[in-house]
């Protein structure tokens, strides 16, 4: 597979080539794949015994069990299927923030592109949803999304996804909450939904979104991207802060309000932690000066299932 996207690093992909992307919940795929399915299948991996009921395929009767117990048992095996991975990229204006380094959007682009590549490589379907403001989108159905690419398999589709990913631009207010709710409604089957965002929204609103997604049996992953200066808020002179999402500029002396800023941030992060705990979302708080390959490796390794006995 040949790639020429700037945000993808071949060396990183090579390094991650030994790792696979696993879903933590059973997935309903269209083809056979590497992920568990809620439906019993014909893989080599034994799942369970169950009593025979008329209509069952007699080829699946375990005759040995019949010989021992004089009863009919159907021997069931796990079904392996592929997954649908939906990448939700927050393209609100704040994602374009970069202070002497890479922007959060670019960082998210690298993470998302790499994961898309890995998923496609293992035969999973990949889709892309760029969440913009509530007013974005051309039709009523598209409201809240700049880009909607439903998950599909294949390299051509991957190429489309990566192209759209490369062209995504951050602008306007965030509409992530609405977008996630729409995602929950729109994606009919179980899917792996990976959100890349700075999550600068009300934690309670986010809690509703995640609960909605979890209710629809989606495996939700959230990459919370933050820039170092946003965390430290250390400036040596008064600053005129321009709201990247279009709000009023604010003139403030960071030396005066730094403590209050830190306190507000701390409260927010604590609330976010609580939301994650309640919604059981696979949450990753990332500072974007961290090497993204480490983040990906940690993410993939963390999702590797334990060996079945």
């Amino acid at each position, binding site marked *: 597979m040949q790639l020429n996207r700037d945000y993808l690093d071949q060396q990183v992909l090579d390094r991650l080539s030994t790792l696979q992307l696993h879903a933590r919940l059973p997935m309903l795929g269209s083809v056979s794949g590497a992920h568990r399915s809620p439906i019993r299948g014909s893989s080599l991996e034994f799942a369970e015994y169950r009593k025979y009921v008329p209509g069952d395929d007699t080829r699946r009767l375990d005759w040995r069990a019949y010989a021992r117990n004089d009863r009919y048992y159907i021997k069931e095996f796990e079904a392996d299927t592929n997954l649908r991975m939906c990448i939700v990229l927050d393209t609100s204006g*704040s994602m374009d923030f970069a202070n002497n380094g890479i922007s959060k959007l670019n960082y998210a682009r690298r993470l998302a592109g790499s994961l898309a590549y890995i998923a496609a490589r293992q035969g999973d379907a990949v889709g892309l949803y760029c969440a913009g403001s509530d007013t974005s989108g051309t039709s009523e159905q598209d409201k809240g999304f700049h880009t909607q690419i439903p998950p599909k398999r294949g390299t051509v589709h991957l190429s489309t996804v990566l192209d759209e990913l490369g062209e995504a631009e951050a602008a306007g207010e965030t509409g992530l909450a609405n977008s996630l709710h729409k995602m929950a409604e729109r994606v009919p089957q179980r899917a792996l939904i990976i959100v890349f965002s700075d999550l600068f929204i009300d934690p309670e609103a986010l809690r509703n979104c995640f609960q909605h997604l979890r209710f629809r049996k989606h495996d939700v992953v959230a990459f919370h991207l933050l820039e170092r200066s946003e965390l430290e808020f250390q400036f040596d*002179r008064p600053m*005129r802060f321009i709201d990247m999402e279009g709000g009023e500029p604010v003139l403030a002396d960071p030396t005066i309000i730094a403590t209050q800023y830190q306190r507000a941030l701390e409260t927010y992060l604590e609330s976010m932690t609580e939301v994650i705990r309640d919604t059981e979302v696979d949450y990753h708080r990332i500072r974007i000066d961290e090497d993204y390959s480490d983040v990906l490796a940690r993410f993939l390794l963390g999702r590797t299932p334990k060996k079945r006995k």
Partner: protein
Amino acid sequence: MSFLQPLALIALPLITLPILIHLINQQRHRTLPWGAMMFLMSAKRMSKGMAQLRHLLIMLMRMLAVGTLVFVVSRPLAGGWLGCVGLGKVNVTLILLDRSASMEMTDLQTGESKRSAALKKVAQLLEQSGYGTHLILIDSTNGQAHKVDSPKALLNLPMTEATATSTDIPGMFESAIAYLKANNSGRADLWICSDLNEHDWQPDSGRWAAVREEFSQLEGTHHFLLAYADRPSSNLSVSVENVRQRKSSSGAELIFDVAVQAEARNSGERRVPIEFEVNNIRSVVELELETWGASLQGHRIPIDARLSSGWGSVRLPGDVNPLDNRFFFVFSEPPVRSAVIVSDDARIGEAFRRALAIPAEAGLQHRIDVIPVARVGEIDWENTGLLIWQAPLSQGNIAEQIESFVNTGRSVLFFPPIQSSSNPRLVKDSDSSEHLFGSRWGGWQTPEQELSKITWWRGDADLLANVDSGNALPLNELRTYRYCNLETPGTTLARYGDDNPMLTRMATDRGGVYFCSTLPTAQFSSLERDGVVFYVMLHRALAEGCRSLAVTSQRDAGASVFADRDQWEVVEPAAEDAPTLSQRGLHAGVYRDDKYWAAVNRSRAEDSTKVTPIATVDELFDGLSYRRIDVAVGDTSALASEIWRTFLVAMGLALIVEAVLSLPSKRAEQKSLGDFTIAGRSGN
């Protein structure tokens, strides 16, 4: 508060520097696109309460630090009262230093006198705070103004040294006024250093009203009184009176009275040794001290009979005031007491002669001459002590001679003239229009019997003073049948029942001039018949007039004490302790000019413990810009001390508080990065 570098206060507006820097800093802000606006807005909301107060305090601390730095540079002064006065820019500073003997009270611990301590304090203060373009010292001995180069020079000037003189404080103020007026001095500070001795201050003098009036017209004049009013707990002073030399069975002897005065609070030694020194022969007598002191009446010391004059001294052991521990005296054989009676009436002249011919004391010689007016030219003015003029008031040369006679310290008694003794025709008003000493005789009067009595006389001083025992002279027994009206500006010493004067004294620089309005003979009064008053009055006038005939004299120290002669030499103290030529007369000692001797001592008033009450002193400056500083002799602290260190400490504290307030919150710092990375947190 006052400042040594007040110009530095120009920089005081720099306290707004932190505000300006803050505002400039606000203007030079950096623009930054920012994503996490939700935290920023929340922080802005939270910073409106305590945080704003904190930063306001930081700003105040910075301003305080700058302000105190400016104050440190301006070198502020403080000294209790001085902090309230404020030493502004002054054109001239006048120092009125009381150099009287009582100012030599010394603190035994520091060894400094009131005068010396006051000088040092004022010099130090002026050195620090400035004294304008001129620093003037008013000499308390003569009232002259001396320009002084610098405050430090005050400490070494002969015009600031100790003297045995008394001080005329109102006179010093008058000299200060004269100087200020003559030089149009503008803003002036007057520093008065004194112990508030009542004799020196003369609080009852009418001159104070004039002084106040003059100063109230001089704008920008401030008075600072450095008052050393405290009295020592123990001090003795000695004086000698009535020094007489007379023949005795063994040759000759000196007789004199010694008085030792003690401070009221004295409770130390109950016996005090007194050392006498006469002709270099010393003797010591111990006196028992009472609470008021001690006295030794009629103490006799034998001397060489061949000695016609000499000197001596009485000395006390050293105490807090060295100037009142020694008293000098001189002695000589008493002069012949000579009086001349000018009268055309033989009977009246004889009455005077008889009264004067009898000496009041044994050993005195009297010579009395009675001459008519026509032979006035024969009077031996040089050797006469008393002139009794019972004749019309003279004019021309005779009047001038009489005035000159008075100016040499002699006495003149004027009695009214009559035309003839045998057939007296009383002088009419028109007959006597001549004036002498501002007075002239009027017409004769015959008062009613009740009004002829002497109803009032001055018994505390002068010719009619009470006798030594304290008893009054029997003037109330006198009868006056005729008296002559007198027009005079003099001071009445005795008056009749109708308020007309019987005896009047004229004001003179030296000598005594008296006018008696009746005559001693029986036709006019009972003066001759009753005798006592007549006798005492004439002999006192004779004694006073003959005092200037003596070759020895006791004098109070003062600038004009040797005005009568100009060849005085110092006899004691001798050698290096002898005062310089300019300071002669200001210091106690014995002086000699040929056959004349003079013992110069402090005025007895300097021994007085009477201090002018503080309230009275304050009243003397009523309506003037005046500040009193009460100081003790042992108080070595400066009048004003620099307090820049206090401001430096305040600045340091302000900076520390500012630093503490500016410290970032540890809590926020830790939370900002700690426990940040969370990976894979889920319930799966």
